[in-house]
Structures are given as C-alpha cells and as structure tokens.
C-alpha cells in the first residue's frame, strides 16, 4: 500500500494541519512582506517548527534528527503550502540537509546536521545561474589550488540565499559546461571573504538572493562528496527538492481550490449562486480531476524516495510537471472566479497566484521536466 498514508503519517498530517492553521496563517506572510522583514520568515514560527522536530525530520537520529522519512517531510511541505508558509523548509531541510546527509563526510555531518536539527543553521543550495533552472549548464568555476579551491562566479535566485549560514555551491572543476561530469558540490561558510549577497524582492514575497563568489578561497575539506562526481549527488538532491516542492505546491493549489469552491457556494448573481452556472461547474470539475492526478504523482514520487526506486528521476519530473500545470491553471482560475475581489491585494488569493509562478519555475518548469522525461525515456 504505497499510495496511501500509514496511520502514523496520518497523525503527522493532522497535527501539521492544525499547527499551520493556527500558527501560520497567510496573514503572517503578508506581514513579513509589508514589513520587509530582514529574514523573510518568522523566527518564532521556525522555532516552533523546530521544537516539533521538523527541522531535523530527514536527519539521522545520530545527528539529533527524527529520521522520520521523506514522506513525512512531504506531508509537512503540503500542509505548509496550504497557507504559503515562509520558512527554511525547502532550502535547509530538503535541499541543504539532504545534500549533507547524502554526500557529506562524517565531520561535515557532525558539525552541521545537529545545528540544522536544532534550527540554528540555515543552508542554501546555489545552483542556477540565470533566470531558468538549467543545472546541465553550470559554469561557475572552482579552480583547484594547492590547498583547496578558488571559487568564482555568480549564482542566481538562490533560495534563502541572504540568510544562509552555509552555501552548498554547485561548481565546475573542469570539463565543459553542458555535461554532468566535472561538477562538484562545495560547502561554503557565509563568512568566507569574497562573497557578495544581493537579496532579491520577488513577487511571491519569499526569499531569494543573487550570490557572487569573487575569488573565494576554500580548503580541500569544503568538498561535499567526490570531486568531479558531484553531478549525481546534485541530481539526487534536486530531485528531492522537486518532489518536496511539488508536495508544497499540491497543498497550495488545494487551498486555492477550496477557496474557489467556497466562493462558488457563497457568491450570488442573477439571483443564484455562481456555482450553479455550468460554465463554472465544469471548470471546477476539471480542476478537481487535475488535483486527483497531482495527489497520485506526488505520492508516487515520495514513495520512490523512501524505497530508493530506480524510477526516482522520472517520477520527480512527472510530479513537478504535473503539479506545475495544474497549479498554473488553478491559480489563474482562482483570480477569474472571484471577479473583481480577486484582483485586490486585501484578499489573499493573489498571493496564491504570485507563489504559483515562482514555484513553477523553481527547480524546473514544465517544459524542462517534459524534456527530461523524454530523455529519461529515450525518445
């Protein structure tokens, strides 16, 4: 029974849903945005989340984590997505912690993972170098030196880049751009000299930054995993990120859909509920059916992570593309079906549209993932 939740997972889902509803309403994101909060997430909320063990949910017990499994993380992402919760879950818990769990040395693990689990360390994976997700064409370079590496180049749209304590930088040690070989992941302390961080203000109000590495000198111990063989590690971590983000988006789109449905049952025109108009009924039914497909692909992908399936890459692309397209459609309908009120900043639905577009392109747009699915399937 891989496609449905276990009892334990259902309990986690219930408690996560309650918690998010009480502690992280959309108004929290609104407040962070309006106050131009320095961190871009609520430290108080993050400390509650940490208390519940979420920061260490994927970290082995040996390093103070919960080791609950990836489905557990998926459940949390989905619930957090419902209210557009801004938190370091994706950057730190999914992408960051898993990079270290999968590729780190014992020393890297024991220095960093316990701090992540206690909520005291933010990690940021620095991959993209332009407006589109394109890990195949990384050109930021780490030159080998006698003592380690010299890092040069700019990473863009780094999630939580301006608050990270460490960057995990995907860099090329040699070989040409356009291949996976020659890539390495480097763990870089934000205090190292030569790092310039430029916080970005994006439409969704969530965190991202451009980060320039200007002759940043690193020791040999900065290497995560094997030199030049970081491509596989990076791809694995990116797939985990895509799947977790798809789970988050699944939660967000369901909430957007619930909001639409409630409005269809409340708003009257021509003396009837607008939900009685067949033009809207059919579109609602199509959205509902799309969500059903999304639930399945996300669940299958989460399961694939837990069973370490050979299909992981394919399912990650399937999940991200399917969820991207459905959320895209739902986010547009969410505005349209609310009429004028949908266009107002005061009403929350606009946040769901803004988050949609950023989430869609993060870690790969639909066309990227359809191309990848084609490559993986040999056509």
């Amino acid at each position, binding site marked *: *029974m*891989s*496609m*449905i939740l276990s009892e334990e997972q259902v309990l986690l889902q219930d408690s996560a849903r309650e918690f998010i509803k009480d502690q992280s309403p959309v108004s929290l994101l609104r407040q962070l945005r309006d106050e131009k909060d320095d961190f871009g997430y609520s430290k108080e909320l993050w400390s509650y989340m940490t208390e519940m063990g979420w920061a260490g949910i994927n970290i082995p017990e040996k390093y103070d984590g919960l080791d609950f499994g990836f489905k557990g993380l998926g459940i949390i992402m989905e619930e957090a997505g419902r209210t557009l919760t801004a938190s370091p879950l994706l950057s730190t818990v999914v992408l960051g912690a898993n990079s270290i769990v999968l590729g780190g040395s014992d020393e890297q693990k024991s220095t960093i993972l316990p701090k992540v689990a206690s909520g005291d360390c933010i990690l940021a994976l620095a991959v993209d170098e332009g407006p589109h997700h394109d890990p195949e064409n990384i050109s930021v370079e780490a030159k080998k030196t006698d003592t380690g590496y010299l890092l040069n180049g700019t990473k863009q749209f780094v999630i939580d880049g301006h608050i990270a304590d460490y960057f995990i930088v995907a860099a090329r040690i040699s070989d040409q751009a356009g291949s996976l070989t020659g890539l390495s992941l480097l763990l870089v302390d934000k205090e190292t000299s030569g790092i310039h961080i430029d916080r970005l203000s994006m439409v969704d109000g969530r965190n991202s930054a451009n980060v320039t590495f200007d002759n940043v000198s690193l020791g040999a111990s900065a290497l995560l995993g094997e030199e030049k063989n970081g491509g596989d590690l990076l791809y694995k971590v990116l797939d985990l990120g895509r799947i977790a983000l798809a789970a988050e988006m699944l939660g967000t789109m369901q909430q957007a859909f619930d909001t639409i*449905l409630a409005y*269809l*049952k409340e708003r009257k025109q021509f003396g*009837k*509920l607008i*939900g*009685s108009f*067949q033009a*809207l*009924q*059919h579109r*609602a*039914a*199509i959205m*509902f*059916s799309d969500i*059903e*497909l*999304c*639930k*399945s*692909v996300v*669940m*299958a992908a989460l399961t694939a992570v837990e069973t370490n399936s050979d299909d992981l890459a394919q399912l990650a692309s*399937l999940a991200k*593309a*399917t969820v991207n397209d459905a959320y895209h459609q739902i986010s547009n309908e969410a505005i349209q079906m609310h009429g004028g009120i949908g266009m107002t900043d005061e009403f929350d639905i606009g946040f769901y549209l803004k988050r949609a577009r950023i989430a869609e392109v993060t870690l790969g747009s639909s*066309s990227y993932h*359809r*191309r990848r*699915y*084609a490559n993986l*399937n*040999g*056509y």
Partner: protein
Amino acid sequence: MTDLNEFQQEVRTWLEVNCPASMRTPMVADEVTIGGRDTTFKNPDTKLWLERMGNKGWTAPTWPKKYGGGGLSPQETNILKQELKRIKARVPMISFGLWMIGPVLLEYGTEEQKQEHLPKIVRGEISWCQGYSEPGYGSDLAGLQTRAVEDGEDYIINGQKVWTSYADKCDWIYALVRTNTEVKHGGITMILFDMASTGVSTRPIKLISGLSSFCETFFDDVRVPKKNVVGEVNDGWAVSNRLLQFERENISADVFASDEVFDVRKIAKDYCSGSDGKVSDPLVRDSLSKILMKDHALKLTFKRVMEGTKAGSSTGSTSSIFKFIGAELNKDRYEFAIDAMGQQGMGWEGKAFTPYQLDVAHEWLRSKANSIEGGTTEINLNVIAKRVLGLRDS
C-alpha cells in the same frame, strides 16, 4: 508469498503452452471478436485462445469458480494480468458481458440468472449488447420511453433503442424499459432477453470511421418472462447506474491497456526521429511527453484509488473522473498519432498504406466516440461538479 510465486510460475508455463504465437502480436481490427453463437473467426488462433482462456475461467479471473470464473484472489489476478502483459497477449474478446452485465448480475442477479448467464459469458458463448439510449433520450437517459407492460408471467415490450453497439451481432440484450409512466427515475426496470425473440429487429448505422458497429434496435411486442428482470421492478435506475460505473471504469481501463497495443512513442520515433534516434522536433517531443505523462499520472491515480478503496476510503464518483480523463487522453493520443504520421496516417484505404496506418486513421475517427459513449465528457463533469463538489443547479 511462495504460493504466489508458484502461481506465477504456473501461469507462465500455462501461457507458454496455451497462448498461440499470433495472439502475442498487436491486435488487428478485423481479428477482434465479441464471441457469441454465430461468431466466425478470421484467425483460427483467436478461437483457440478464447476457448482456452474461457475454459480456464481467466477471461473473468475474479468471478467465482461456480459461475465459470477463475476464482482468483486480487493478488493472483494481478499476477495473471502481469504475465499476460509480459507476453503482450491480446485480450481474448471484447465483451459487454464480462465488463458490464456480468458484474451487475453478480451483485443484483438471482441465483438462477447467475447460473444461466455467467458461465456462458466467461466462455464467450453468448454475447451481450446494451439497450439504454433512445432517439430522444441519450444524456437524459432517465427519460426513456420503451414500454414494458405486464401480461401474466411476462412483460410485453415496445419501443426503440439507438446506438446499440453490436446489436445486429449479439445474442442477448440487457435493456432499460419503462414499467411506470408516472415517475421518471423510479419507473425504470432492467430486463434481459434474447435478441432472437420474435419482435426484435436491428438496423446497422454507419460510423464516421466507416465501420457500422452500432444499430437502431426496434422492439415490437417482444414477450419476456418476468423472471428476467434484474434487481427489483422500478429499481432499474440504481442497477443501471451501477452498470454505468463498471462501464466507465472499463472504458478507462481499456484506455490504459491500449498503451501497450497502441504505442505512440514508437510512432513518434518511426515518423519524427532525427539521426540520433530521438524525436527531432522539440514541439512534437513536448506533446509526446504531455501524453505519456498524463497516462502515467492516470495509472498512478488508478493505483492510488484502488489502494484507497481496499483501505476503506473512497473519493466517490471516481469512475467519472477516470472516464473523463481517460477519454480525453485517448483522443489526444490519436490526434498526436496522425499528427506525427502526417498524411501517411490519414489514409482511408488502398495499397499506399500499411494495414497499421489504415488502422490508426480509422481508430482516430473511432476515438472521437470515447467522450460520447458511456456518458459524455460534459455529463461526467456534471457528475463530478454535483456529486463530488456539491455544486447545485439553483
């Protein structure tokens, strides 16, 4: 576990011996059989394959043995399906009996009805057609007017059905008839009768694909014993809805199966690949991914719903969701195929085209019915909107 392994071995060996080689090649349209009394087989292997599977009960793997079924557990059924898929075995027959009326009889039929009809369905000895739609009542099925009037131990049936698939070739019909004219839904009864009965006549209708697989069907004072009623008199609407659920599930299950039989990926490679063997036009490639990914997502959803049902949680009206998505997907698949094949995929007849190419062209036309038969896409969306989402008409 070892029991299942043994079973798998047994199935594999049996299929090795019993599935004729030509039944492991892609289906060709004129070798499809619906079984029945006067069936002729173009390919003798089709007959052999149907007989062997039928005698084994494996055309209806989950039905009880006492009604001729395979008596297999769900796990065993899965293994059987996997093994059939592994050797790319053809479906032994297309059968409304197996897919629709059989499952309904298992739930609603009298013991006598089960004994009489189910074994013959399993072995493909009697073929069934469905008498639901009428000229004035398609989507609005519950308005149907075909009358059944009591006469002693019998009903006398008068009226007309339309779009009755294979009516001219089938042996028996399950029909919806009106037994009460005062109320709409509550006046409908499901009844079974032999198409050879006096007063039954059919007239084939030609489809856009050139085939005439369905008919106008006329009932003129047809006498049917009361014991042929399925379920309760005037409770036919519930029975027919149950049957429609099976139908919708099967139409979508059929669509899943066709992935193996109708391989769009191969078409794309054969007609649109560059020197590296990959599809060269990025837009064609993207369209292909859209189709294959939708198909993948739908299969996973099928799996999820099955597991959910087993665990006792159900989304409700899932058959409408599957029917809607599956039908639209299959139409997209054929549109993709003729687009990828270009004019070579649009031949009507003649030597300039391979039989496969001609099949694709005709099946493309046939696929347009997917979103009409068994409840239109619009009707399925209505069902989702009303029953699942609770949107009302006023």
